[in-house]
């Protein structure tokens, strides 16, 4: 069990982060003076009401967006000062994303979807095929490799999404409501998979969810409310 992560260095360090969106003349303060550390190898659940800024925070950690103020460190890299181009390269190398709606490319087969992140690496086609096969085996979908997304069930699509997230073997896996669109059984399968990835492969996982059943699988849960993080849900 990797519950006890005390003493390990933080893989993710968010310090003094502010995030303000502008909608017309209106300023929306989503995150204020937010601090978060995620030790390497931790499975963290991030909960909070809808619109509380969970996705916003996840995007900052994943280098999809920049904070209005404050710093975001992941591994040895400071993300908030990187250029678009450098961020794209950083994402390709260090992070895997899993989205609520699977977000597979409908015109590509499962294996071609999984292969996408590898197209950005210098791997040869044969090496890419090997990595794809491994990732699909991990999620238990080797037999679905040639299937198009629309012929797969929701749970299967999400597992393909996870395979795509881990195919480059990133240290950090960011999941935004990965079970939000799935029924209980399919959701459990996905959670089992994430848990296994965390325990057996040591992946650091940050998972946004509003499902207590999902957060129960994580080693630690933090709550986002009114722009701040707490260790207990607000009553």
């Amino acid at each position, binding site marked *: 069990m990797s519950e006890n992560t005390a003493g390990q260095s933080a893989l993710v360090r968010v310090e003094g982060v502010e995030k303000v969106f502008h909608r017309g003349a209106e300023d929306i303060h989503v995150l204020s003076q937010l601090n978060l550390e995620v030790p390497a190898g931790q499975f963290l659940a991030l909960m909070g009401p809808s619109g509380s800024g969970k996705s916003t925070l996840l995007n900052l950690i994943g280098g999809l967006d920049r904070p209005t103020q404050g710093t975001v460190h992941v591994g040895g890299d400071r993300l908030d000062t990187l250029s678009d181009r450098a961020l794209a390269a950083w994402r390709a190398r260090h992070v895997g994303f899993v989205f609520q709606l699977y977000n597979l*490319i409908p015109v590509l087969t499962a294996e071609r979807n999984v292969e996408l992140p590898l197209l950005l690496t210098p791997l040869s086609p044969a090496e890419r095929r090997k990595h794809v096969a491994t990732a699909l085996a991990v999620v238990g979908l080797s037999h679905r490799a040639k299937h198009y997304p629309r012929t797969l069930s929701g749970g299967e699509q999400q597992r393909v999404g996870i395979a795509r997230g881990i195919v480059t073997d990133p240290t950090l896996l960011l999941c935004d409501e990965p079970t939000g669109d799935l029924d209980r059984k399919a959701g459990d399968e996905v959670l089992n998979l994430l848990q296994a990835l965390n325990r057996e492969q040591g992946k650091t996982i940050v998972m946004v969810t509003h499902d207590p059943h999902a957060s129960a699988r994580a080693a630690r849960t933090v709550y986002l409310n009114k722009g701040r993080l707490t260790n207990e849900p607000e009553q």
Partner: protein
Amino acid sequence: MRFLHLIWGNLTRKKLRTALTLLTVLVAFVLFGFLSAIRQALVGGVELAGADRLIVRHKVSIIQLLPVAYQARMERIPGVAAAVHQTWFGGIYQDPKNFFMQSPVVPAEFMAMYPEFILPPEQMRAWLATRTGAIVGRKTAERFHWKIGDRIPIMSPIWMRKTWEFDLVGIFDGRDKGTDTTALYFRYDYFDEVRQTQNWGQGLVGWYTIRVKDPAQAADTARRVDEEFANSPAETKTEPEGAFVQAWANQVGNITLIVAGILGAVFFTILLVTGSTMSQAVRERIGELGVLKAIGFTNGQVLGLVLAESCLLTVLGGGLGLGLAWLIIARGDPTGGLLPMFFLPGRDLLLGFGLSLALGLVTGLLPARQATRLRVADALRRL
């Protein structure tokens, strides 16, 4: 290219829409190819015209005749290397639809003036030895399946209103692809002898071709020729062969301008059709483009994907269209003889390919920019 299956997948996502757009582009490029061939047929001779050749015609119009005695006077003018004459025969072979040009010429000097006509030496000797002999270009010989030794009856409504018979002694080829090999040439001495017996039109010719000694002095030489015959009953107008061919073609209208106008309108339409297809295609998959960016695709790579898709569409449509045009055009002159140099020049084929690529870039650029400007976080929210 490792992204090819992704580009292809995107292109074939909406099969009907892609097929229709492809068809539109294809039709436009068939038209482009066809109009190029017509333009080539009508004004292509301008480029092939000898830079050292001038055409001398009657000042009033090309159908007015000039004395054959002008030839010797022209050759005495400084700057003139040689002069030969031709005369419009206007003959009909079997049916007026079977149009091709015929002209009486003086064989040796004529062939020396037009080195682009290639005639085997023994056929040339036969022509010199046969008073009623004629030579014909390869195209017309093949068109009517004529062989050397055939007797060719040609009815001239202008000259004697009778059917003339010529002995085919030679078939000439063109040196260049664009060389006109549709005409038939027969001997002037035979022609004039018949005119003398009827005492009608003898000693008159249609127009002259002059070779100048120095192309740089062509304008001066032309002026001197016209001065020589000024204030005579048959004044002349001398111009470069290219200008003469151009004027001939311009009887139909300013071909190049007409062709450019039609193609401009067509390509503007294509631009709108393809452009709207592409921007629709991009708008539909904003979310997917966001996913690609999240995975680590750079803005440049996303731009490249969209541009590659639009270029693939237009180059495919353009290539198929040009290919189809080429096949149709290769079947020959659709007018049955009015367009002797009807073919699709390689230069226009290349231009067409360039145009199809440019079309892809232009139509893809706006949607591609839209795709790049998209912030990842925003794109993902739009799923």
